[in-house]
């Protein structure tokens, strides 16, 4: 186990992905859901970097991870803007409260 | 015998306590001596790892025994010792400072020696040496080619050098050095701030502790803070409350691990050093935020929210202003950014163009905000938020926030110096001192003082620290909405314009060397004038300090 390989990193990223998924499923606080999404995105970014290091040996994976980080930041900004609006309308950020569209 | 009055009783109690302390520490020392003896005896009998362990433990117990007995002795003879210390403490302190500065060079020299050794060719086999070298090999090298006479000295030095081959050992030494340096900077900064404040406010500042101008005040404060109760609030979020001071302090300390003190004096010369430093500056805020939130105090919460708003906003102009020298130099490596400024005053990045000069100003304002220094000290605004985010902290944890603040102040000063103001080079052109750089040791030392070296970086950084103090003790505090206004509507557009202007400069003006040269000269003269004006103000205030205060008050207040 002393030499670290692809599998070690992939295990970690899988764990991050599943934790993020779980957080996204069960948290009712909208910001909690955002946190779960960040975890999932980060798991993907880890995979990009790891494959670039162990797979192709080029910088392409890192470029992809860079885009992932940029898009994650954009997503967070958007999400928080939406939450602010949500809060303004419903006076809570409980995601379950936003069920006005179900008719 | 008459009954002692209350004052005498207090003295008696102190005596009693001292006697008990002497007795206790003597007893402790005796126990440790005993333990040491038993372990040492065991170590001689048992072989292998257990024996080694026992030997090590015996050495530890011996050290503790010695320490206890020394403490007992010190308490027993505290009065003559105190008198002696009061007389010799300051000379000792100065000698210690000089010795520290001197010994800081020694590891550097030794590293150099080791590297040369590793690169050299073995005399015996004629092949390149293999790392790590054996002690015997180094010893023979020292005895042979270095002209070390005594075999005993050669053995000693060789074993030292052998240790220094390993990166881990070097890192340990460097990290210890950094921690010591940061503590010294913080303690000096706190003392200096109080002295500067005192002078600005026509008073003296600390004068008592240690004799000369209260030089030991920070030391005494530190000891006091260490003894204080570590207060914890029942309503606070316990883990976060305990964690927060470290979250604030560790990034501030880590800053120094990538900060070069000169081209060679750097712990880790990262390729992305600048971004790393930005990241660490941003991380430090989290400690403040956590401290405020976990204290369960509304003032603290307000303070930490202010800090978060301020930091998030000011990071943007700060980052843009940093991009300007990066664009001019074309590197994110801090040593590269510094090395382009070797050729004297006019080669400093700040004076390269009007845009870099503006970037330097924006950077300085941004660092004021990111270090929570006045006029941006809203997170700890004492007249509004009691003490802001550290309202509920006491003792050592509270001191950690201060250590972090002063370490950060120095670090951003150093960063400004490295990026804009000539890094570790003096204002004199390097060409003048080129001959001395490779000369004998005294010439090299003189070169280090006159032309380039850590002393220049430290000196210039301290100047920026002084500037921050000057502002703090002069200006009122701005309001939160004004902080945001200044950032979003003034600094940010300005920074963007500077960035755009600098790229224009790089593309169009720089190739026309005459124009660029002219602008460079104008900027340099401007900068020099500002510096001279500042120095003139300082000198004027110093010379006329009695007149500025007024004859009446001089008679009235001592030493104003």
């Amino acid at each position, binding site marked *: 186990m002393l030499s670290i*390989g*692809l599998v070690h990193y992939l295990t970690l990223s899988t764990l991050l992905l599943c934790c993020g998924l779980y957080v996204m499923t069960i948290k009712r606080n909208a910001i909690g859901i955002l946190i779960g999404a960040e975890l999932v995105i980060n798991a993907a970014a880890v995979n990009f*970097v*790891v494959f670039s290091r162990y797979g192709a040996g080029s910088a*392409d994976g890192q470029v992809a*991870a860079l885009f992932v*980080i940029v898009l994650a930041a954009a997503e967070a900004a958007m999400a*928080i803007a939406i939450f602010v609006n949500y809060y303004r309308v419903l006076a809570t950020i409980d995601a379950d409260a936003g069920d006005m569209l179900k008719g | 015998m008459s009954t002692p009055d209350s004052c005498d009783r207090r003295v008696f109690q102190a005596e009693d306590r001292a006697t008990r302390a002497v007795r206790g520490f003597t007893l402790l020392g005796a126990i440790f001596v005993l333990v040491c003896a038993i372990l040492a005896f065991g170590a001689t009998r048992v072989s292998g790892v257990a024996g080694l362990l026992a030997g090590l433990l015996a050495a530890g117990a011996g050290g503790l025994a010695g320490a206890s007995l020394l403490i007992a002795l010190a308490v027993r003879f505290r009065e003559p010792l105190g008198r002696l210390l009061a007389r010799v403490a300051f000379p000792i302190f100065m000698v210690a400072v000089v010795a520290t500065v001197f010994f800081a060079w020694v590891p550097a020299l030794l590293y150099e020696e080791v590297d040369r050794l590793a690169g050299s060719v073995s005399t015996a086999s004629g092949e390149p040496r293999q790392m790590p070298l054996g002690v015997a090999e180094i010893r023979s090298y020292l005895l042979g080619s270095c002209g070390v006479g005594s075999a005993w000295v050669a053995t000693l030095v060789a074993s030292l050098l052998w240790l220094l081959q390993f990166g881990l050992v070097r890192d340990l030494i460097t990290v210890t050095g950094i921690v010591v340096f940061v503590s010294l900077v913080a303690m000096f900064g706190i003392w200096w701030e109080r002295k500067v404040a005192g002078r600005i406010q026509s008073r003296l500042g600390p004068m008592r502790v240690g004799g000369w101008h209260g030089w030991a005040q920070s030391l005494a404060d530190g000891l006091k803070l260490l003894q204080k109760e570590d207060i914890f609030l029942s309503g606070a979020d316990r883990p976060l409350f305990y964690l927060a001071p470290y979250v604030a302090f560790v990034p501030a300390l880590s800053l120094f691990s990538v900060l070069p003190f000169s081209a060679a004096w750097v712990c880790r010369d990262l390729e992305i050093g600048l971004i790393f430093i930005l990241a660490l500056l941003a991380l430090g805020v989290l400690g403040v935020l956590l401290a405020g939130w976990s204290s369960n105090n509304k003032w603290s919460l307000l303070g930490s929210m202010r800090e978060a708003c301020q930091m998030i906003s000011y990071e943007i102009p700060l980052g843009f202003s940093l991009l300007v020298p990066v664009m001019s130099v074309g590197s*994110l490596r801090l040593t590269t950014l510094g090395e382009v400024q070797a050729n004297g005053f006019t080669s400093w990045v700040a004076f390269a163009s009007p845009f870099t000069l503006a970037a330097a100003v924006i950077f300085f304002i941004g660092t004021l905000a990111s270090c929570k220094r006045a006029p941006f000290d809203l997170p700890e605004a004492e007249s509004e938020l009691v003490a802001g985010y550290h309202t509920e902290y006491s003792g050592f944890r509270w001191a950690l926030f201060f250590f972090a603040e002063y370490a950060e102040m120095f670090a951003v000063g150093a960063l400004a110096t490295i990026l804009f103001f000539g890094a570790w080079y003096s204002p004199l052109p390097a060409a003048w001192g080129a001959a001395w750089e490779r000369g004998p040791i005294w010439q090299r030392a003189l070169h280090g003082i006159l032309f380039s070296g850590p002393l220049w970086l430290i000196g210039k950084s301290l100047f920026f620290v002084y500037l921050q103090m000057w502002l703090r003790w002069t200006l009122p505090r701005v309001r939160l909405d004004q902080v945001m206004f200044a950032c979003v509507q003034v600094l940010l557009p300005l920074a963007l314009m500077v960035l755009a202007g600098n790229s224009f400069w790089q593309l169009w003006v720089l190739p026309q060397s005459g124009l660029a040269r002219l602008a460079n000269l104008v900027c340099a003269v401007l900068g020099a004038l500002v510096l001279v004006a500042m120095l003139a103000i300082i000198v004027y205030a110093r010379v006329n300090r009695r007149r500025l205060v007024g004859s009446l008050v001089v008679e009235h207040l001592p030493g104003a």
Partner: protein
Amino acid sequence: MSEAAMFYVFAAVAAGGAVGCVIAVSIVRMALCLLATLGAVALLYFLLGADFLGAIQLIVYAGGTLVVIVFGIMLTSQGSAARFLPRRGEVVAGLLVSAGLLAGLTAIMLRTEWPQAGAASEASVLHLGSRLLSTYLVPFELASVVLLAVMVGAAYLARPLAGRRTGSGHEG
């Protein structure tokens, strides 16, 4: 060997942070756990030789998490974390889904033949930058357009509600 030790430490912190996000009830603690994960991942990037990416991750996410915490505090009062506790059925469903995914992915991962440690990439900042401005120019520009759109969109969404603003000379 030291690399392995470092990997295990950082990975443990990252995994611990992720699990902490799952367990924590208070939004601030969740954000802190997220930060621990992201910081550890940044350190893993350093370990993988992607220094630039690690530093960027620290900057972007430190700032990002900060914002999340700030909004978390602003929009939820301190004592009301219990309001957001999930229901039992949700927990079971979430656990099933994510545990199933974990099991499936792990199974696939263990079955796959992965290439053994390839050559270390020469991904210096310079290299990365030139790749961004040559091969990946279009995605790069697209990303900047996306960021611009997000900036405008976020500003539009979070603007003060029009119509409620009267009489002060500002038109919403």
